[in-house]
């Protein structure tokens, strides 16, 4: 078996079982071998910096209307121009990063954690519990993500926190499924290993091998869902179910008549769209490369 391919790929002999990862070495290797992923990470970091320091970086209050400067072209006073109320677009986009990141991280994290927990419980409890949970996840999975989010957002009403809930719920079954599959495969191998371990405590074996094996798919799916969560927020805002005015959410800035103004003031429709695309792009690049790096053998089950 050639060795060149085993740099970040686990050897076939230990199939799904991975040795402990050395964090720092991995990161450096990651940057070197996966430049796209590193670029994605840079974008994400940039977004986070902007979001965190938008209070100091943003030249204006994003809610402050300036009636004398409605629809101002991008100029030295307003680098991205102003919107229909004379609010500075660049400040709104900077503050919007907060909302995008908040929605993205929270929805993805909450959804995947809950789903992951359910997946682990399902795999290890087995029997009736497993059957019941699997059926429940199947039912949730039968709904397209956006439709389920739409229905839930209708119940809760337009608000940022409601959007997070609405988006995280469809993520739960998807995460559950993947984590359960990973946990199941570990279970099989642990059985084998345990027999072979000649007396080593099952719990030690479980802990030594369970954690890396479930963590990897967990991380993968969290990063995979991040970009999708941001897009879902944008779509829901566009449909009128997301954040409400005057919140500077990127999706909201694109909804409704922002596009009616697009000919008079194209910057209103262009910059938020670019911001969303860039953000999701960064998350996807990073998530993609991370998945390649961690475990290319991980396959979504049909």
């Amino acid at each position, binding site marked *: 078996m050639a060795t060149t391919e085993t740099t970040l790929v686990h050897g076939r002999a230990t199939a799904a079982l991975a040795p402990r990862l050395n964090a720092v070495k991995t990161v450096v290797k990651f940057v070197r071998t996966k430049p796209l992923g590193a670029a994605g990470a840079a974008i994400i970091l940039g977004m986070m910096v902007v979001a965190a320091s938008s209070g100091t970086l943003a*030249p*204006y*209050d994003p*809610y*402050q*209307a*300036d*009636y*004398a*400067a*409605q*629809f*101002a*072209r991008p*100029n030295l*006073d*307003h680098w991205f121009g*102003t919107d*229909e*109320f*004379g609010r500075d677009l660049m400040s709104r986009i900077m503050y919007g990063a907060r909302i995008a990141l908040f929605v993205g991280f929270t929805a993805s994290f909450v959804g995947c954690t809950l789903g992951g927990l359910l997946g682990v419980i399902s795999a290890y409890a087995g029997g009736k519990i497993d059957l019941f949970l699997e059926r429940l996840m199947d039912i949730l999975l039968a709904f397209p993500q956006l439709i389920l989010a739409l229905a839930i957002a*209708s119940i809760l*009403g*337009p*608000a940022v926190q409601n959007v997070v809930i609405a988006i995280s719920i469809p993520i739960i079954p998807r995460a559950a499924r993947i984590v359960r599959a990973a946990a199941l495969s570990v279970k099989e191998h642990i059985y084998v290993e345990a027999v072979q371990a000649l007396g080593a405590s099952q719990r030690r074996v479980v802990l030594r091998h369970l954690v890396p094996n479930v963590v990897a798919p967990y991380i993968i799916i969290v990063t995979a869902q991040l970009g999708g969560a941001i897009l879902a927020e944008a779509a829901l805002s566009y449909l*009128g179910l997301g954040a*409400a*005015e*005057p919140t500077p959410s990127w999706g909201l800035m694109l*909804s*409704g*008549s922002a*596009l*009616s*103004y*697009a*000919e*008079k003031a194209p910057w209103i429709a262009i910059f938020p769209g670019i911001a969303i695309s860039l953000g999701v792009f960064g998350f996807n690049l990073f998530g993609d490369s991370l998945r390649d790096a961690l475990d290319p053998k991980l396959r979504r089950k049909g």
Partner: protein
Amino acid sequence: MTVRSPRTFGVVVLALVIGALILAMTSPSVAADTPRRGGVLLAVIGADAPTLDPHQEGTFATLQVVAPLYSTLLQIDPYNYPKIIGDVATDWKISSDGLTYTFKIRSDIRFHDGTPLTAADVRASYDKIVSPPAGTRSMRKNTYTMVASVEAPDASTVVFKLKHPSASLLDNLASPWNVIYPKKYLDKDPNYFLKNVMGSGPFKFKAYTRGSTFEAERNPDYFLKDRPYLNGYKFFISPETSVRAAAIRSGRAYIEFRDLPLSEVEAIKRQLGDKVTVQHTPLIGQWGVAIQNTIKPFTDVRVRRALTLGFDRYTAGRVLFPLTGLRHVGALMRPGTEWAVPPAELEKLPGFGRDAERNRAEAKKLLAEAGYPNGFKVVLKNRNVKLPYQDFAVYVIQEWRKIGVEAENRPLETAALLSDVRDHGNFELSVSATVEYIDDPDVFLRRYTTGDPNNVGRYSDPILDDLFARQGRALDPAERKKLIVDMQKRVLEQAYYMPGLWWTRNVVHWTKVKNYVAPPSHYTNQKLQDVWLAED
């Protein structure tokens, strides 16, 4: 922390636009040249009709598509708002005690299936409106509570007997929603017209694909012998505003009957120049804020007054007009009409003075007196529609911040909003709109009386109830006007409700569409019988 830029692009554009609109506002009424026959009018409309029965619906989506298929007893003169003229009726007499209205109707009207339209059909249609049979609904039932009975003593006479005199009956009978159905179909099934059409109007029903198109063709047996000029019309249903604007721009449709935002209008005008005409009309509609009078802090009239004092209406008209069409400052009846509060008296009412700074200072003082020296937080519920609801809310919220009131905008879908605000009174403040087809005081002012279903603020003021009842019966216009003005003043002094701005609209159409006069309501003048196309 605003950076005040010099007057820039935005203001210049606004000035140019207003100038352009004034220029563009050609007098689109009666064309000097001879009407051309033929052609199909293509129109876009922003919503799909839930059903086809205007008695049972309240949306323009129903009315605009079926109005040309029917006749009404009376109508508003399309060229002379608000004069009432007959459609099916030729003349009418009112008894001296004001309790009996006798209408003579034409004898040469036929429904599209050939049967003649007689007084019995008028009677059956109005019976359905005034006393809806079980299983149907009548959206305007409440405006006919004064009607005791409708009779048809012979085939060409209809008599309305009233319980008490009413100053508004004729206006209400001119409602475009009160189409005349053939009695024989109503007898078989009063819900027949939810899905079917059988009218006597200038056009006959052709085809309807739900969510997509509505088509009709010319009625060759229409009782006005040389009308209509068009061969037919076709509505395309398209809920997205940009797409409707694009349709007009690309010529796939010739007219949008309701409204297009100013930015779209400018773009269309820029591209097509003289090929399009823009009719800018006021609309009989007002946006304001409903206040839940039964909960704190709004039980205190000082707090309510502070809200309206803190809202700079005159700047609002300037800022919101290019975005939403909301423009005119007025009380509870449309400014410029006979029932409006005269401007001199208006400016004395709280919130209507011209000095915004002084108003704000007074608002803060009132709030302090009422126990809120640092203002308070409140939730403003709203309909989840951008124009003009959301934009109005953004402005109002900005204004109230200046007096310390932190309002959170909470848009809800229409269904949820109606449930909260109308049904359960579950709100603190709510953006609220009143839009009608005619400046009728009965219709507009009813909602300020005790117990009215539209009195969402749930206040009860015997003075208002008394004024309303008296104005409804006052047959002398001067007396009636005084009562109506007094009623408006009372509402505004007590600040039960906060009026915002009155609406205007832009009707855009290709210039080849001739003889369409946009009235101050998107519900009237939809019969299209006088419209013609200069070319196909």
